[in-house]
């Protein structure tokens, strides 16, 4: 089991563009959460998906949206990118609440 995998690992966008990040959960995990980690900060919760529905959402604008597919993989979409969206985006899957398995992240740079 490769664990949680994310793609791409790095990407550069310009302001106003849109980005899609992808995540495959650990085998057998049905819940996927997304986090934004700015430099020098801890991960901040964006939202969580379970059974293809957004179950919980953190304090992020509607520009951040997501999707979960029947195979439990997930996408994070960010529209109208701002410079402040530059961060490491982490995906985590879980079977037991709180016991998160993280991917290595997608580092987004917005110029």
């Amino acid at each position, binding site marked *: 089991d490769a*664990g*949680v995998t994310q793609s791409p690992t790095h990407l550069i966008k310009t302001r106003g563009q849109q980005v899609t990040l992808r995540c495959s959960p650990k085998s057998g995990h049905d819940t996927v*959460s997304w*986090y934004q980690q700015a430099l*020098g*900060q*801890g*991960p*901040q*919760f964006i939202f*969580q998906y379970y059974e293809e529905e957004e*179950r*919980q959402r*953190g304090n992020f604008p509607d520009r951040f949206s997501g999707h979960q597919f029947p195979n439990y993989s997930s996408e994070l979409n960010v529209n109208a990118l701002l410079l402040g969206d530059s961060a490491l985006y*982490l995906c985590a899957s879980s079977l037991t*609440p*709180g*016991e*998160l*398995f*993280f*991917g*290595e*992240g997608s580092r987004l740079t917005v110029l």
Partner: protein
Amino acid sequence: AQRVTQPEKLLSVFKGAPVELKCNYSYSGSPELFWYVQYSRQRLQLLLRHISRESIKGFTADLNKGETSFHLKKPFAQEEDSAMYYCALRTNNNDMRFGAGTRLTVKP
């Protein structure tokens, strides 16, 4: 407000010395707390959770509701303990609130 505070960004100790990484939380309900660790060039991973009350890699953490703290302790630090440590709180909405992290360096 539901918040986790780790007051020390950096902590440095010598090998064999005791180490304590501080974590304070603010939460109105019954908290569920965790410590996550990120070793160099590895992904973030769960170290321990308070409800399991177990020792992992020699680390323990006790939930003190009176002081709203969940400090991580180890009596004798090892060089391989050098890492970034994050304290986290699971809210009753099932989202996780992470602290800003403490970078622990264990010197030889």
